[in-house]
């Protein structure tokens, strides 16, 4: 079992009190699995990603554990986590476009980073160059400054840097949103290629763009307002979702070939709750067409079929 998250809860400290951004999340990822993590803005997907690798103030670890390859990650202890960062768990950040030091040549920065982690850059150079070929980057890129590289080149460079130590788990945060369509497809396919070549064991792809997940993710985890709504294989989530929020989310996405005058799509009324004092129980309650009084208590995240989890009383009741 590659990653096991048990009841993880992380809040943001703000001047007006705690924002309950992530509420007791439990799920697991098998080796070799690419899990898509999707949801609207503010649903907690970036909090979950940061919680796993860089839990620093203003974020606060409230509860829960994280096990990677059956070893517990000291996520709350910033110093102790350093041993795992980059080697066991790594990240391609949302801000990949300016993640590299602007005043340092890329190669030199990589060497200094490796040396600071007591790894001999000379020994890893051949592997680094092999990886550059994998992402179709010319070796001369190591002598360039970030300002001389295009958006796509920087994204692929950060991808190579972050996975240089063959981490067991890679977090890829919105890696395609800033790119244009053609580069987006190339980068997404390279990510899958890295998993196929066992450069990384498993990947969490964080994005709001469901169609990208349909192309590259094995499974998808849907989040809403800091809670897990549904997790399952990509085909089931896209074509036969069970959680009311997932259903509405999928149907509200315009697909090429759907014309307005033919089928009029519908959005989801209302807006996500503020997480400063979120509603009791299921947080989708106020916007959910199928809500009833049981929804006041928090619905458990239950496996209704092998590999398919849902947190909704309607589904678990009818299924029991």
């Amino acid at each position: 079992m590659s990653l096991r998250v048990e009841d993880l809860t992380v809040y943001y400290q703000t001047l007006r009190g705690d924002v309950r951004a992530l509420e007791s999340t439990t799920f697991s990822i098998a080796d070799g699995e690419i899990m898509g993590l999707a949801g609207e803005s503010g649903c907690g997907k970036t909090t979950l990603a940061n919680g796993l690798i860089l839990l620093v103030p203003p974020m606060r670890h409230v509860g829960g554990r994280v096990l990677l390859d059956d070893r517990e990650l000291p996520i709350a202890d910033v110093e102790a986590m350093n041993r795992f960062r980059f080697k066991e768990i790594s990240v391609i950040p949302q801000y990949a476009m300016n993640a590299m030091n602007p005043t340092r040549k890329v190669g030199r920065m990589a060497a200094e980073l490796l040396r600071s982690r007591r790894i001999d850059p000379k020994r890893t150079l051949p592997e680094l160059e092999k990886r550059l070929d994998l992402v179709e980057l010319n070796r001369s890129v190591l002598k360039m400054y970030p300002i001389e590289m295009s958006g796509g080149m920087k994204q692929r460079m950060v991808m190579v840097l972050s996975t240089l130590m063959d981490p067991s788990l890679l977090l890829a945060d919105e890696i395609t949103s800033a790119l244009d369509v053609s580069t987006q497809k190339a980068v997404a396919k390279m990510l899958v290629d890295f998993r196929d070549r066992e450069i990384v064991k498993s990947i969490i792809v964080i994005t709001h763009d469901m169609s990208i997940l349909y192309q590259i993710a094995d499974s998808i985890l849907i989040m809403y307002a800091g809670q897990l709504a549904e997790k399952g294989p990509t085909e089931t989530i896209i074509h036969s979702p069970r959680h009311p929020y997932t259903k509405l989310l999928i149907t509200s996405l315009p697909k090429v070939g759907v014309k307005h005058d033919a089928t009029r799509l519908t959005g989801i009324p209302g807006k996500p709750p503020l997480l400063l004092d979120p509603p009791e129980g299921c947080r989708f309650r106020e916007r959910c067409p199928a809500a009833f009084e049981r929804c006041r208590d928090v619905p458990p995240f239950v496996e209704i079929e092998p590999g398919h989890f849902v947190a909704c009383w309607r589904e678990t009741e009818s299924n029991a």
Partner: protein
Amino acid sequence: MLRLENASKIYRVGTFGGKQLRAVSDVSFTVKDGEVVSLIGESGSGKSTIGKMILRLIGITGGKITFDDRDIATLRGGALKAYYRNVQGVFQDPFSSYNPIFKADRVFEIVRDHFFPGVEDREWDEKVRRSLESVGLNPRHVLDKYPHQLSGGQLQRFLIARALLLDIRFLVADEIISMLDASTRIDVLNLLADLKERGLAVLFITHDLSLGYYISEDAAILYRGCVVEFGRTEKIYDHPAHPYTRMLMASVPRLDQKWEDVEIELRAKQEDLSTGCVYYERCCDPHRSERCRERRPRLVEIEPGHSVACDRYSTDG
């Protein structure tokens, strides 16, 4: 109604305007009354520049833009104000479209001061209430609020209501839903479609093919400042003629079919091609020849309601 004839925009870049950046070159298309045209292009294709040129927010370097056959570049003072009675715009970032230190409905007051000075309060409030309801907003929930107290979707519809106050005939919607969440996007899109029913013409600028398809009859595909394909939306989507459009169709992730394995050429930074076809470097079409490098192909109609700018179809070839 609105016609662009070889509209171009060249920016002076670098210190003392040394280098020139060709943002838009020789773009021509028309938007008829009550018609929605989508302008589809990736970042840096010049689509927002075209939007701003139509709204007279930036000057035009070459060619002409006419509204009801009058060149909008010549409009001054009163004539310009009359133009804004007919043409308005809504932009990408809802939160940047409001002056943060004032209440949201100040945008209505500005419209009132400049366009309806004589109207008394009661009649004006009624007019505001009606236009808010026509965009699906409940006046009681949205009036007298600061921008940060409203959601992105509400703010965008608020701006459309502002435009409707002026009974405009043409709306430039520049990526108005790209910053909204999936669920609230559809409401704004449906709103645009409903307004089209009521005779409003819309230029829908977006980088998302599926959105373009959903609401527009005609679509223009833009690449590095040039319209490479223009025509009925269904025709372009069903059988794209230009290599760039074909590559777009193959690369955009869809919810109903997996990616085909179309080979994509990943180019480093391309330098500026002032002559010849802009897509020359990345074009994988076997037809590509030296002629593509020298001559820039013009838009040629290959079937009724579907024209493309590619050497393969050029008549005088």
